[in-house]
Protein backbone atom coordinates (compact mmCIF):
# COMPACT_ATOMS: atom_id res chain seq x y z
CA UNK A 1 0.00 0.00 0.00
CA UNK A 2 1.14 3.52 -0.45
CA UNK A 3 1.50 6.99 0.90
CA UNK A 4 1.36 9.66 -1.77
CA UNK A 5 2.91 13.10 -1.43
CA UNK A 6 2.40 15.93 -3.85
CA UNK A 7 5.08 18.55 -3.29
CA UNK A 8 4.50 21.98 -4.84
CA UNK A 9 2.91 20.52 -7.91
CA UNK A 10 2.42 22.89 -10.82
CA UNK A 11 0.93 22.19 -14.21
CA UNK A 12 1.22 24.85 -16.87
CA UNK A 13 0.35 24.85 -20.53
CA UNK A 14 2.29 27.80 -21.87
CA UNK A 15 1.27 30.58 -19.51
CA UNK A 16 -2.01 28.93 -18.53
CA UNK A 17 -2.03 27.38 -15.09
CA UNK A 18 -3.90 24.10 -14.78
CA UNK A 19 -2.72 23.40 -11.27
CA UNK A 20 -0.63 25.61 -9.01
CA UNK A 21 1.15 25.06 -5.69
CA UNK A 22 -0.61 21.87 -4.81
CA UNK A 23 0.68 20.21 -1.65
CA UNK A 24 -1.15 17.14 -0.44
CA UNK A 25 0.05 14.35 1.80
CA UNK A 26 -2.17 11.33 1.31
CA UNK A 27 -1.82 8.76 4.06
CA UNK A 28 -1.70 5.03 3.42
CA UNK A 29 -5.18 3.55 3.06
CA UNK A 30 -6.76 6.99 3.09
CA UNK A 31 -9.77 7.85 0.95
CA UNK A 32 -9.11 11.34 -0.37
CA UNK A 33 -11.63 13.25 -2.47
CA UNK A 34 -10.66 16.10 -4.78
CA UNK A 35 -13.70 18.36 -4.99
CA UNK A 36 -14.31 21.42 -7.12
CA UNK A 37 -16.13 22.89 -10.09
CA UNK A 38 -15.15 21.82 -13.60
CA UNK A 39 -11.84 23.27 -14.70
CA UNK A 40 -10.52 23.62 -11.15
CA UNK A 41 -7.57 21.30 -11.79
CA UNK A 42 -8.78 18.29 -9.81
CA UNK A 43 -8.67 15.87 -12.74
CA UNK A 44 -5.27 17.18 -13.82
CA UNK A 45 -3.99 16.63 -10.30
CA UNK A 46 -5.26 13.06 -10.38
CA UNK A 47 -3.77 12.45 -13.80
CA UNK A 48 -0.42 13.56 -12.47
CA UNK A 49 -0.71 10.97 -9.69
CA UNK A 50 -1.58 8.38 -12.34
CA UNK A 51 1.38 9.36 -14.49
CA UNK A 52 -0.79 10.28 -17.45
CA UNK A 53 0.30 13.89 -17.08
CA UNK A 54 3.70 15.18 -16.08
CA UNK A 55 3.92 18.00 -13.55
CA UNK A 56 5.63 21.12 -14.92
CA UNK A 57 7.15 21.62 -11.48
CA UNK A 58 7.11 19.77 -8.19
CA UNK A 59 7.33 16.13 -7.23
CA UNK A 60 4.93 13.25 -7.06
CA UNK A 61 6.23 10.94 -4.36
CA UNK A 62 4.94 7.47 -3.61
CA UNK A 63 6.29 5.74 -0.51
CA UNK A 64 9.25 8.08 -0.49
CA UNK A 65 10.13 7.52 -4.12
CA UNK A 66 9.96 10.35 -6.64
CA UNK A 67 7.72 9.14 -9.44
CA UNK A 68 7.89 12.08 -11.87
CA UNK A 69 9.70 10.15 -14.58
CA UNK A 70 7.94 6.85 -14.03
CA UNK A 71 5.43 6.09 -16.75
CA UNK A 72 1.80 5.35 -15.92
CA UNK A 73 2.22 1.72 -16.92
CA UNK A 74 4.94 1.19 -14.31
CA UNK A 75 3.22 2.98 -11.43
CA UNK A 76 0.96 0.25 -10.09
CA UNK A 77 -1.91 2.68 -10.06
CA UNK A 78 -5.40 1.67 -11.19
CA UNK A 79 -7.84 4.19 -12.53
CA UNK A 80 -11.59 4.27 -13.11
CA UNK A 81 -12.85 6.76 -15.65
CA UNK A 82 -16.01 8.80 -16.03
CA UNK A 83 -16.79 7.18 -19.37
CA UNK A 84 -15.96 3.71 -17.95
CA UNK A 85 -13.32 3.22 -20.69
CA UNK A 86 -14.05 -0.48 -21.11
CA UNK A 87 -12.42 -1.98 -24.17
CA UNK A 88 -15.38 -2.32 -26.55
CA UNK A 89 -14.04 -5.26 -28.53
CA UNK A 90 -13.41 -7.44 -25.48
CA UNK A 91 -15.83 -9.31 -23.24
CA UNK A 92 -16.08 -8.23 -19.60
CA UNK A 93 -13.92 -11.23 -18.72
CA UNK A 94 -11.24 -10.10 -21.17
CA UNK A 95 -11.55 -6.54 -19.93
CA UNK A 96 -10.87 -7.55 -16.35
CA UNK A 97 -8.08 -9.86 -17.52
CA UNK A 98 -6.33 -7.15 -19.53
CA UNK A 99 -4.30 -5.59 -16.67
CA UNK A 100 -3.27 -9.06 -15.47
CA UNK A 101 -2.12 -9.96 -18.97
CA UNK A 102 -0.18 -6.70 -19.33
CA UNK A 103 1.59 -7.33 -16.04
CA UNK A 104 2.45 -10.93 -16.84
CA UNK A 105 0.44 -12.46 -14.04
CA UNK A 106 0.75 -16.24 -14.46
CA UNK A 107 -2.12 -17.72 -16.44
CA UNK A 108 -2.99 -20.18 -13.70
CA UNK A 109 -3.67 -17.34 -11.29
CA UNK A 110 -5.65 -15.16 -13.66
CA UNK A 111 -8.99 -16.93 -13.73
CA UNK A 112 -9.44 -17.07 -9.96
CA UNK A 113 -8.55 -13.42 -9.57
CA UNK A 114 -10.88 -12.32 -12.35
CA UNK A 115 -13.79 -14.20 -10.83
CA UNK A 116 -13.06 -12.88 -7.37
CA UNK A 117 -12.92 -9.29 -8.60
CA UNK A 118 -16.11 -9.74 -10.60
CA UNK A 119 -17.93 -11.26 -7.62
CA UNK A 120 -16.86 -8.36 -5.45
CA UNK A 121 -18.91 -6.01 -7.61
CA UNK A 122 -21.61 -8.58 -8.42
CA UNK A 123 -20.59 -8.85 -12.05
CA UNK A 124 -20.05 -12.62 -11.99
CA UNK A 125 -23.01 -13.45 -14.25
CA UNK A 126 -22.02 -10.94 -16.93
CA UNK A 127 -18.47 -12.02 -17.67
CA UNK A 128 -19.26 -13.22 -21.17
CA UNK A 129 -20.99 -10.02 -22.23
CA UNK A 130 -19.49 -7.26 -24.30
CA UNK A 131 -19.57 -3.79 -22.69
CA UNK A 132 -22.11 -2.66 -25.27
CA UNK A 133 -24.63 -5.15 -23.91
CA UNK A 134 -24.52 -3.78 -20.35
CA UNK A 135 -26.27 -0.92 -18.56
CA UNK A 136 -24.34 2.09 -17.29
CA UNK A 137 -24.21 0.80 -13.74
CA UNK A 138 -23.00 -2.62 -14.84
CA UNK A 139 -20.33 -1.05 -17.00
CA UNK A 140 -19.08 1.03 -14.12
CA UNK A 141 -18.98 -2.05 -11.89
CA UNK A 142 -17.02 -3.87 -14.56
CA UNK A 143 -14.60 -0.95 -14.69
CA UNK A 144 -14.23 -1.18 -10.90
CA UNK A 145 -13.52 -4.89 -11.15
CA UNK A 146 -10.87 -4.22 -13.78
CA UNK A 147 -9.26 -1.68 -11.48
CA UNK A 148 -9.18 -3.85 -8.35
CA UNK A 149 -8.26 -7.15 -10.01
CA UNK A 150 -4.53 -6.60 -9.80
CA UNK A 151 -4.55 -5.21 -6.23
CA UNK A 152 -2.96 -1.89 -7.11
CA UNK A 153 -1.08 0.33 -4.70
CA UNK A 154 -3.27 3.28 -5.50
CA UNK A 155 -6.84 3.47 -6.69
CA UNK A 156 -7.86 6.55 -8.68
CA UNK A 157 -11.44 7.39 -9.65
CA UNK A 158 -12.29 10.24 -11.98
CA UNK A 159 -15.96 11.14 -11.56
CA UNK A 160 -16.92 7.49 -11.85
CA UNK A 161 -20.58 8.03 -10.98
CA UNK A 162 -21.48 11.14 -12.91
CA UNK A 163 -22.95 9.25 -15.86
CA UNK A 164 -25.34 7.28 -13.65
CA UNK A 165 -28.81 8.21 -12.45
CA UNK A 166 -29.34 9.44 -8.90
CA UNK A 167 -30.59 6.21 -7.38
CA UNK A 168 -27.85 4.10 -8.88
CA UNK A 169 -25.32 6.67 -7.84
CA UNK A 170 -26.19 6.25 -4.19
CA UNK A 171 -25.96 2.46 -4.38
CA UNK A 172 -22.61 2.65 -6.16
CA UNK A 173 -21.32 5.17 -3.65
CA UNK A 174 -21.89 2.72 -0.84
CA UNK A 175 -20.33 -0.08 -2.86
CA UNK A 176 -17.22 1.95 -3.62
CA UNK A 177 -16.80 2.86 0.04
CA UNK A 178 -17.19 -0.79 1.04
CA UNK A 179 -14.69 -1.89 -1.57
CA UNK A 180 -12.12 0.62 -0.42
CA UNK A 181 -12.52 -0.41 3.23
CA UNK A 182 -12.21 -4.09 2.33
CA UNK A 183 -9.18 -3.72 0.09
CA UNK A 184 -7.47 -1.01 2.17
CA UNK A 185 -6.11 0.68 -0.93
CA UNK A 186 -5.06 4.32 -0.86
CA UNK A 187 -7.72 6.01 -2.98
CA UNK A 188 -8.12 9.34 -4.67
CA UNK A 189 -11.54 10.25 -5.97
CA UNK A 190 -12.37 13.24 -8.17
CA UNK A 191 -15.85 14.70 -8.17
CA UNK A 192 -17.79 17.92 -8.48
CA UNK A 193 -20.60 16.44 -6.42
CA UNK A 194 -20.41 17.57 -2.80
CA UNK A 195 -22.64 14.74 -1.59
CA UNK A 196 -20.23 12.17 -3.03
CA UNK A 197 -17.34 14.03 -1.45
CA UNK A 198 -18.98 14.27 1.97
CA UNK A 199 -20.09 10.65 2.09
CA UNK A 200 -16.99 8.97 0.68
CA UNK A 201 -14.06 10.96 1.94
CA UNK A 202 -11.77 10.57 4.89
CA UNK A 203 -10.50 13.96 3.84
CA UNK A 204 -11.69 16.38 1.19
CA UNK A 205 -9.48 18.69 -0.85
CA UNK A 206 -11.53 21.59 -2.17
CA UNK A 207 -10.00 23.12 -5.28
CA UNK A 208 -10.76 26.17 -7.37
CA UNK A 209 -8.89 27.66 -10.31
CA UNK A 210 -6.00 25.28 -9.92
CA UNK A 211 -5.37 25.99 -6.25
CA UNK A 212 -6.29 24.20 -3.08
CA UNK A 213 -8.86 26.14 -1.08
CA UNK A 214 -9.06 23.85 1.92
CA UNK A 215 -8.07 20.38 3.04
CA UNK A 216 -10.02 18.75 5.83
CA UNK A 217 -12.39 16.06 6.99
CA UNK A 218 -15.94 16.39 5.68
CA UNK A 219 -16.99 17.78 9.06
CA UNK A 220 -14.26 20.42 9.03
CA UNK A 221 -15.04 21.42 5.48
CA UNK A 222 -18.71 21.82 6.33
CA UNK A 223 -18.56 23.40 9.73
CA UNK A 224 -15.31 25.30 9.49
CA UNK A 225 -14.93 26.58 5.92
CA UNK A 226 -11.70 28.44 5.16
CA UNK A 227 -13.22 30.97 2.78
CA UNK A 228 -16.38 32.00 0.95
CA UNK A 229 -15.63 29.64 -1.94
CA UNK A 230 -15.61 26.55 0.27
CA UNK A 231 -18.57 27.89 2.25
CA UNK A 232 -20.57 28.41 -0.93
CA UNK A 233 -19.53 25.15 -2.59
CA UNK A 234 -20.48 22.83 0.26
CA UNK A 235 -24.09 22.62 1.31
CA UNK A 236 -27.27 22.77 -0.71
CA UNK A 237 -28.71 25.31 -1.01
CA UNK A 238 -25.37 27.11 -0.53
CA UNK A 239 -24.52 29.33 2.40
CA UNK A 240 -26.06 32.80 2.31
CA UNK A 241 -23.39 35.46 2.10
CA UNK A 242 -24.33 38.94 3.25
CA UNK A 243 -22.11 41.98 2.59
CA UNK A 244 -21.81 44.36 5.53
CA UNK A 245 -19.47 46.03 7.92
CA UNK A 246 -18.02 45.30 11.33
CA UNK A 247 -17.62 48.25 13.67
CA UNK A 248 -16.75 47.88 17.33
CA UNK A 249 -17.94 44.29 17.50
CA UNK A 250 -21.19 44.94 15.66
CA UNK A 251 -21.87 43.60 12.15
CA UNK A 252 -24.40 45.65 10.24
CA UNK A 253 -25.95 45.01 6.88
CA UNK A 254 -29.21 46.20 5.32
CA UNK A 255 -31.96 44.57 7.40
CA UNK A 256 -29.57 42.77 9.71
CA UNK A 257 -27.59 43.60 12.83
CA UNK A 258 -25.37 41.23 14.76
CA UNK A 259 -23.94 42.36 18.07
CA UNK A 260 -21.22 40.80 20.20
CA UNK A 261 -19.10 39.74 17.22
CA UNK A 262 -15.95 38.38 18.81
CA UNK A 263 -13.69 39.01 15.87
CA UNK A 264 -10.79 41.36 15.75
CA UNK A 265 -11.70 43.13 12.55
CA UNK A 266 -12.91 46.57 11.62
CA UNK A 267 -14.42 47.55 8.30
CA UNK A 268 -16.20 45.79 5.44
CA UNK A 269 -16.87 42.10 5.93
CA UNK A 270 -19.10 39.28 4.75
CA UNK A 271 -21.40 37.24 6.92
CA UNK A 272 -22.20 33.67 6.03
CA UNK A 273 -25.27 31.84 7.29
CA UNK A 274 -26.22 28.32 6.27
CA UNK A 275 -29.86 27.83 5.28
CA UNK A 276 -30.12 24.96 7.73
CA UNK A 277 -28.88 27.09 10.65
CA UNK A 278 -31.81 29.46 10.33
CA UNK A 279 -34.81 29.26 12.61
CA UNK A 280 -38.02 30.50 11.06
CA UNK A 281 -40.32 32.61 13.25
CA UNK A 282 -38.20 32.19 16.37
CA UNK A 283 -39.94 32.78 19.66
CA UNK A 284 -37.16 35.04 20.84
CA UNK A 285 -33.84 35.39 19.10
CA UNK A 286 -31.22 38.04 19.67
CA UNK A 287 -30.17 38.02 16.02
CA UNK A 288 -32.76 38.00 13.33
CA UNK A 289 -33.73 39.45 10.01
CA UNK A 290 -37.00 40.15 8.35
CA UNK A 291 -37.67 39.55 4.68
CA UNK A 292 -40.35 39.22 2.10
CA UNK A 293 -41.40 35.68 1.20
CA UNK A 294 -40.35 35.14 -2.41
CA UNK A 295 -40.69 31.39 -2.75
CA UNK A 296 -41.96 28.46 -0.71
CA UNK A 297 -40.92 25.02 -1.97
CA UNK A 298 -42.15 22.08 0.05
CA UNK A 299 -40.09 18.99 -0.84
CA UNK A 300 -41.68 16.60 1.64
CA UNK A 301 -38.94 16.29 4.19
CA UNK A 302 -38.43 20.03 4.47
CA UNK A 303 -39.53 23.33 2.99
CA UNK A 304 -37.20 25.62 1.10
CA UNK A 305 -38.03 29.22 1.85
CA UNK A 306 -36.63 32.03 -0.30
CA UNK A 307 -36.63 35.51 1.12
CA UNK A 308 -35.86 38.91 -0.32
CA UNK A 309 -33.92 40.93 2.21
CA UNK A 310 -33.08 44.35 0.92
CA UNK A 311 -31.89 43.53 -2.58
CA UNK A 312 -30.56 40.16 -1.49
CA UNK A 313 -31.80 36.61 -1.96
CA UNK A 314 -31.75 34.65 1.25
CA UNK A 315 -32.30 30.89 1.40
CA UNK A 316 -33.72 29.19 4.46
CA UNK A 317 -34.46 25.57 5.24
CA UNK A 318 -37.71 25.57 7.17
CA UNK A 319 -39.69 22.86 8.86
CA UNK A 320 -41.58 20.55 6.53
CA UNK A 321 -44.90 21.85 7.77
CA UNK A 322 -43.95 25.49 7.21
CA UNK A 323 -46.17 27.38 4.76
CA UNK A 324 -46.42 31.10 4.02
CA UNK A 325 -48.16 33.38 1.56
CA UNK A 326 -45.93 34.79 -1.16
CA UNK A 327 -45.31 38.43 -0.49
CA UNK A 328 -45.93 38.16 3.25
CA UNK A 329 -43.09 38.90 5.61
CA UNK A 330 -41.14 36.29 7.51
CA UNK A 331 -38.93 36.50 10.52
CA UNK A 332 -35.75 34.43 10.66
CA UNK A 333 -33.43 34.04 13.63
CA UNK A 334 -29.89 32.68 14.01
CA UNK A 335 -27.53 31.41 16.59
CA UNK A 336 -24.34 33.39 17.05
CA UNK A 337 -22.41 30.11 17.12
CA UNK A 338 -23.35 29.28 13.55
CA UNK A 339 -22.35 32.52 11.92
CA UNK A 340 -19.27 32.76 9.73
CA UNK A 341 -17.40 35.97 8.97
CA UNK A 342 -15.18 36.49 5.95
CA UNK A 343 -12.92 39.23 4.67
CA UNK A 344 -14.74 41.42 2.18
CA UNK A 345 -11.97 41.42 -0.44
CA UNK A 346 -10.28 38.01 -0.40
CA UNK A 347 -13.18 36.01 1.01
CA UNK A 348 -10.85 34.43 3.59
CA UNK A 349 -12.37 33.45 6.87
CA UNK A 350 -12.16 35.87 9.81
CA UNK A 351 -11.60 34.03 13.05
Amino acid at each position, binding site marked *: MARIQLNNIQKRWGSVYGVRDVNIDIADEEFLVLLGPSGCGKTTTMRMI*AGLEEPTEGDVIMDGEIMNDVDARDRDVAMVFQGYALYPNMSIYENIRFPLR*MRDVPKAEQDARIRKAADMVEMGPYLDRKPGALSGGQRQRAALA*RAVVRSPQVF*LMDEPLSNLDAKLRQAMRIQIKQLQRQLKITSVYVTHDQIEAMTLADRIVVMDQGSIQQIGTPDEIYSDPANTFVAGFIGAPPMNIVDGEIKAGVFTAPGLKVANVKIDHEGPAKLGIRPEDCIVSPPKSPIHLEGEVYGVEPTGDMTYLSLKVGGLDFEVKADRSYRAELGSSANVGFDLEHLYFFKADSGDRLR
Partner: protein
Amino acid sequence: MASVRRSKGESHLIRYLILGSWALFCLMPVLWFLTIGLRPRVEIITPTPIYWPTFSLEAWNMIWRDWPMAKYLMNSVAAIFGSVVIDLVLAIPAAYSLARYEYRGRDDIGFYILSTRMMAPAIVAIPIFFLFRNMGLLDSVWALMLIYAAINLSIVTWIIRSYMIDIPKELEDAARTDGASDLRILWEIIVPAILPGIITAAVIAMIFAINEFLFTLLIASTPNAYTMSVALANFTGGSDGVIYNAIALVSFLAFLPVFIVVLLIQNHLSRGLTMGAVKG
Protein backbone atom coordinates in the same frame (compact mmCIF):
# COMPACT_ATOMS: atom_id res chain seq x y z
CA MET B 1 -57.21 6.35 -40.93
CA ALA B 2 -57.48 4.49 -44.20
CA SER B 3 -56.91 7.58 -46.28
CA VAL B 4 -53.83 8.45 -44.25
CA ARG B 5 -52.39 5.06 -44.89
CA ARG B 6 -53.11 5.22 -48.61
CA SER B 7 -51.47 8.60 -49.00
CA LYS B 8 -48.45 7.23 -47.17
CA GLY B 9 -48.35 4.33 -49.60
CA GLU B 10 -48.57 6.70 -52.52
CA SER B 11 -45.73 8.83 -51.27
CA HIS B 12 -43.67 5.67 -50.91
CA LEU B 13 -44.46 4.72 -54.47
CA ILE B 14 -43.39 8.13 -55.76
CA ARG B 15 -40.24 7.96 -53.71
CA TYR B 16 -39.33 4.59 -55.19
CA LEU B 17 -40.12 5.82 -58.70
CA ILE B 18 -37.81 8.81 -58.34
CA LEU B 19 -35.03 6.84 -56.70
CA GLY B 20 -35.45 4.01 -59.20
CA SER B 21 -35.12 6.29 -62.18
CA TRP B 22 -32.11 7.96 -60.68
CA ALA B 23 -30.47 4.59 -60.01
CA LEU B 24 -31.21 3.51 -63.56
CA PHE B 25 -29.71 6.73 -64.89
CA CYS B 26 -26.55 6.20 -62.85
CA LEU B 27 -26.24 2.54 -63.75
CA MET B 28 -26.91 3.12 -67.44
CA PRO B 29 -23.25 3.16 -68.52
CA VAL B 30 -22.64 -0.06 -66.63
CA LEU B 31 -25.63 -1.81 -68.14
CA TRP B 32 -24.74 -0.50 -71.54
CA PHE B 33 -21.23 -1.88 -71.14
CA LEU B 34 -22.61 -5.21 -70.14
CA THR B 35 -24.86 -5.43 -73.21
CA ILE B 36 -21.97 -4.44 -75.46
CA GLY B 37 -19.78 -7.07 -73.91
CA LEU B 38 -22.36 -9.74 -74.54
CA ARG B 39 -23.06 -8.89 -78.21
CA PRO B 40 -21.35 -10.15 -81.32
CA ARG B 41 -18.70 -7.80 -82.61
CA VAL B 42 -20.39 -7.17 -85.95
CA GLU B 43 -23.47 -5.88 -84.24
CA ILE B 44 -21.50 -3.30 -82.29
CA ILE B 45 -19.89 -1.62 -85.23
CA THR B 46 -23.01 -1.35 -87.41
CA PRO B 47 -24.00 2.27 -87.85
CA THR B 48 -27.76 1.53 -87.67
CA PRO B 49 -29.08 1.23 -84.15
CA ILE B 50 -30.14 -2.20 -82.95
CA TYR B 51 -32.81 -2.20 -80.26
CA TRP B 52 -32.89 -5.88 -79.41
CA PRO B 53 -29.30 -7.09 -79.27
CA THR B 54 -28.34 -10.67 -79.97
CA PHE B 55 -26.80 -12.44 -77.01
CA SER B 56 -23.34 -13.79 -77.73
CA LEU B 57 -20.40 -15.11 -75.73
CA GLU B 58 -18.01 -14.23 -78.55
CA ALA B 59 -16.08 -11.66 -76.54
CA TRP B 60 -16.11 -13.81 -73.41
CA ASN B 61 -14.64 -16.76 -75.25
CA MET B 62 -12.12 -14.57 -76.98
CA ILE B 63 -10.67 -12.90 -73.94
CA TRP B 64 -9.97 -16.19 -72.24
CA ARG B 65 -8.78 -17.93 -75.39
CA ASP B 66 -6.62 -15.31 -77.10
CA TRP B 67 -5.27 -13.42 -74.11
CA PRO B 68 -3.75 -14.55 -70.80
CA MET B 69 -6.64 -12.96 -68.97
CA ALA B 70 -6.18 -15.20 -65.95
CA LYS B 71 -2.61 -13.97 -65.68
CA TYR B 72 -3.74 -10.32 -65.89
CA LEU B 73 -6.34 -10.99 -63.27
CA MET B 74 -3.79 -12.60 -60.99
CA ASN B 75 -1.41 -9.67 -61.54
CA SER B 76 -4.17 -7.24 -60.61
CA VAL B 77 -5.13 -9.17 -57.52
CA ALA B 78 -1.53 -9.60 -56.36
CA ALA B 79 -0.52 -6.00 -56.96
CA ILE B 80 -3.65 -4.58 -55.38
CA PHE B 81 -3.73 -6.91 -52.42
CA GLY B 82 -0.02 -6.43 -51.78
CA SER B 83 -0.28 -2.67 -52.01
CA VAL B 84 -3.16 -2.57 -49.54
CA VAL B 85 -1.17 -4.68 -47.09
CA ILE B 86 1.84 -2.37 -47.41
CA ASP B 87 -0.44 0.65 -46.97
CA LEU B 88 -2.00 -0.69 -43.80
CA VAL B 89 1.30 -1.73 -42.26
CA LEU B 90 2.70 1.76 -42.82
CA ALA B 91 -0.44 3.84 -42.37
CA ILE B 92 -1.72 2.46 -39.07
CA PRO B 93 1.33 3.50 -37.01
CA ALA B 94 1.66 6.74 -38.97
CA ALA B 95 -1.98 7.60 -38.42
CA TYR B 96 -1.67 6.79 -34.73
CA SER B 97 1.25 9.13 -34.42
CA LEU B 98 -0.61 11.89 -36.26
CA ALA B 99 -3.75 11.35 -34.22
CA ARG B 100 -2.32 10.99 -30.74
CA TYR B 101 1.26 12.09 -30.18
CA GLU B 102 2.06 15.72 -29.68
CA TYR B 103 5.21 16.92 -31.32
CA ARG B 104 6.39 19.96 -33.18
CA GLY B 105 5.31 20.06 -36.81
CA ARG B 106 2.85 17.21 -36.46
CA ASP B 107 0.09 18.95 -38.37
CA ASP B 108 2.53 20.07 -41.04
CA ILE B 109 3.72 16.52 -41.52
CA GLY B 110 0.12 15.35 -41.71
CA PHE B 111 -0.64 17.93 -44.34
CA TYR B 112 2.51 17.10 -46.24
CA ILE B 113 1.44 13.47 -46.38
CA LEU B 114 -1.95 14.45 -47.71
CA SER B 115 -0.49 16.90 -50.20
CA THR B 116 1.34 14.11 -52.01
CA ARG B 117 -2.10 13.11 -53.19
CA MET B 118 -2.78 16.54 -54.67
CA MET B 119 0.08 16.43 -57.11
CA ALA B 120 -0.61 15.45 -60.71
CA PRO B 121 0.89 11.96 -61.06
CA ALA B 122 2.33 12.79 -64.51
CA ILE B 123 4.84 15.09 -62.81
CA VAL B 124 6.60 12.22 -61.11
CA ALA B 125 6.00 9.63 -63.82
CA ILE B 126 9.32 10.06 -65.61
CA PRO B 127 11.53 10.17 -62.49
CA ILE B 128 9.73 7.14 -61.15
CA PHE B 129 10.29 5.31 -64.39
CA PHE B 130 14.04 5.90 -64.21
CA LEU B 131 14.12 5.11 -60.54
CA PHE B 132 12.43 1.78 -61.07
CA ARG B 133 14.52 0.99 -64.10
CA ASN B 134 17.73 1.57 -62.16
CA MET B 135 16.44 -0.66 -59.40
CA GLY B 136 15.66 -3.33 -61.98
CA LEU B 137 12.02 -3.30 -60.99
CA LEU B 138 10.48 -2.66 -64.40
CA ASP B 139 7.92 -5.10 -65.64
CA SER B 140 7.25 -6.73 -62.32
CA VAL B 141 4.21 -7.09 -60.12
CA TRP B 142 6.32 -6.12 -57.11
CA ALA B 143 6.95 -2.73 -58.65
CA LEU B 144 3.23 -2.23 -59.19
CA MET B 145 2.63 -3.15 -55.59
CA LEU B 146 5.04 -0.45 -54.44
CA ILE B 147 3.61 2.15 -56.78
CA TYR B 148 0.02 1.51 -55.77
CA ALA B 149 1.01 1.56 -52.12
CA ALA B 150 2.78 4.89 -52.58
CA ILE B 151 -0.15 6.43 -54.40
CA ASN B 152 -2.68 5.44 -51.79
CA LEU B 153 -0.63 5.75 -48.62
CA SER B 154 -1.62 9.34 -47.97
CA ILE B 155 -5.34 8.79 -48.25
CA VAL B 156 -5.25 5.56 -46.25
CA THR B 157 -3.30 7.32 -43.51
CA TRP B 158 -5.78 10.17 -43.35
CA ILE B 159 -8.86 7.99 -43.28
CA ILE B 160 -7.46 5.84 -40.49
CA ARG B 161 -6.32 8.92 -38.63
CA SER B 162 -9.83 10.37 -38.74
CA TYR B 163 -11.20 7.21 -37.15
CA MET B 164 -8.48 7.18 -34.51
CA ILE B 165 -9.20 10.75 -33.47
CA ASP B 166 -12.78 9.74 -32.65
CA ILE B 167 -11.66 7.04 -30.20
CA PRO B 168 -12.07 8.38 -26.67
CA LYS B 169 -8.70 9.17 -25.18
CA GLU B 170 -9.89 7.66 -21.91
CA LEU B 171 -9.61 4.25 -23.52
CA GLU B 172 -5.90 4.70 -24.06
CA ASP B 173 -5.40 6.20 -20.61
CA ALA B 174 -7.12 3.16 -19.15
CA ALA B 175 -4.90 0.81 -21.12
CA ARG B 176 -1.81 2.74 -20.10
CA THR B 177 -2.64 2.59 -16.39
CA ASP B 178 -3.46 -1.09 -16.91
CA GLY B 179 0.16 -1.48 -17.91
CA ALA B 180 0.02 -1.67 -21.71
CA SER B 181 2.86 -0.36 -23.87
CA ASP B 182 2.14 1.99 -26.77
CA LEU B 183 2.45 -0.82 -29.27
CA ARG B 184 0.04 -3.03 -27.37
CA ILE B 185 -2.42 -0.16 -26.99
CA LEU B 186 -2.31 0.36 -30.72
CA TRP B 187 -2.61 -3.30 -31.54
CA GLU B 188 -5.02 -4.54 -28.87
CA ILE B 189 -7.20 -1.50 -28.22
CA ILE B 190 -7.11 0.95 -31.12
CA VAL B 191 -6.98 -1.35 -34.12
CA PRO B 192 -9.93 -3.55 -33.06
CA ALA B 193 -11.93 -0.44 -32.18
CA ILE B 194 -11.46 1.17 -35.59
CA LEU B 195 -11.67 -1.99 -37.66
CA PRO B 196 -14.54 -0.58 -39.77
CA GLY B 197 -12.35 2.41 -40.60
CA ILE B 198 -9.44 0.21 -41.55
CA ILE B 199 -11.64 -1.86 -43.83
CA THR B 200 -13.02 1.29 -45.42
CA ALA B 201 -9.56 2.67 -46.04
CA ALA B 202 -8.46 -0.66 -47.51
CA VAL B 203 -11.42 -0.74 -49.90
CA ILE B 204 -10.89 2.83 -51.02
CA ALA B 205 -7.23 2.05 -51.66
CA MET B 206 -8.31 -1.03 -53.57
CA ILE B 207 -10.62 0.96 -55.81
CA PHE B 208 -7.93 3.50 -56.61
CA ALA B 209 -5.45 0.71 -57.29
CA ILE B 210 -7.78 -1.12 -59.65
CA ASN B 211 -8.30 2.05 -61.64
CA GLU B 212 -4.64 2.99 -61.74
CA PHE B 213 -3.47 3.19 -65.35
CA LEU B 214 -0.63 5.64 -65.90
CA PHE B 215 2.05 4.05 -63.74
CA THR B 216 0.99 0.55 -64.62
CA LEU B 217 1.40 1.32 -68.29
CA LEU B 218 4.77 2.87 -67.59
CA ILE B 219 6.14 0.00 -65.57
CA ALA B 220 4.44 -3.01 -67.09
CA SER B 221 6.02 -3.15 -70.51
CA THR B 222 5.14 -6.76 -71.30
CA PRO B 223 2.14 -8.98 -70.46
CA ASN B 224 4.29 -10.30 -67.63
CA ALA B 225 3.05 -7.50 -65.38
CA TYR B 226 -0.09 -6.38 -67.20
CA THR B 227 -3.09 -5.77 -65.02
CA MET B 228 -6.74 -5.63 -65.99
CA SER B 229 -6.67 -1.89 -66.54
CA VAL B 230 -3.69 -2.02 -68.88
CA ALA B 231 -4.92 -5.15 -70.58
CA LEU B 232 -7.81 -3.06 -71.82
CA ALA B 233 -5.39 -1.11 -73.93
CA ASN B 234 -4.53 -4.38 -75.66
CA PHE B 235 -7.84 -4.47 -77.40
CA THR B 236 -7.43 -1.15 -79.12
CA GLY B 237 -4.47 -1.79 -81.37
CA GLY B 238 -3.10 -4.43 -83.68
CA SER B 239 -4.43 -5.91 -86.82
CA ASP B 240 -7.84 -6.58 -85.35
CA GLY B 241 -8.66 -2.93 -84.75
CA VAL B 242 -10.60 -1.84 -81.66
CA ILE B 243 -12.40 -4.80 -80.14
CA TYR B 244 -15.18 -2.97 -78.38
CA ASN B 245 -17.08 -5.90 -76.97
CA ALA B 246 -13.95 -7.36 -75.37
CA ILE B 247 -13.07 -3.98 -73.87
CA ALA B 248 -16.55 -3.63 -72.47
CA LEU B 249 -16.53 -7.10 -71.00
CA VAL B 250 -13.11 -6.75 -69.37
CA SER B 251 -14.14 -3.37 -67.97
CA PHE B 252 -17.22 -4.96 -66.54
CA LEU B 253 -15.16 -7.76 -65.01
CA ALA B 254 -12.83 -5.23 -63.42
CA PHE B 255 -15.79 -3.29 -62.13
CA LEU B 256 -17.69 -6.20 -60.63
CA PRO B 257 -15.53 -7.06 -57.59
CA VAL B 258 -15.31 -3.41 -56.55
CA PHE B 259 -19.06 -3.06 -56.96
CA ILE B 260 -19.73 -6.03 -54.70
CA VAL B 261 -17.29 -4.90 -52.02
CA VAL B 262 -18.72 -1.38 -52.04
CA LEU B 263 -22.24 -2.75 -51.67
CA LEU B 264 -21.13 -4.72 -48.63
CA ILE B 265 -19.52 -1.81 -46.82
CA GLN B 266 -21.39 1.20 -48.20
CA ASN B 267 -22.36 2.51 -44.78
CA HIS B 268 -18.76 2.69 -43.65
CA LEU B 269 -17.62 4.02 -46.98
CA SER B 270 -19.54 7.29 -46.87
CA ARG B 271 -18.19 7.81 -43.38
CA GLY B 272 -14.66 7.18 -44.60
CA LEU B 273 -14.95 9.56 -47.52
CA THR B 274 -16.00 12.46 -45.34
CA MET B 275 -12.80 11.72 -43.40
CA GLY B 276 -14.06 12.44 -39.94
CA ALA B 277 -15.68 15.71 -40.87
CA VAL B 278 -19.01 14.26 -39.78
CA LYS B 279 -19.14 12.33 -36.57
CA GLY B 280 -21.02 9.13 -37.14
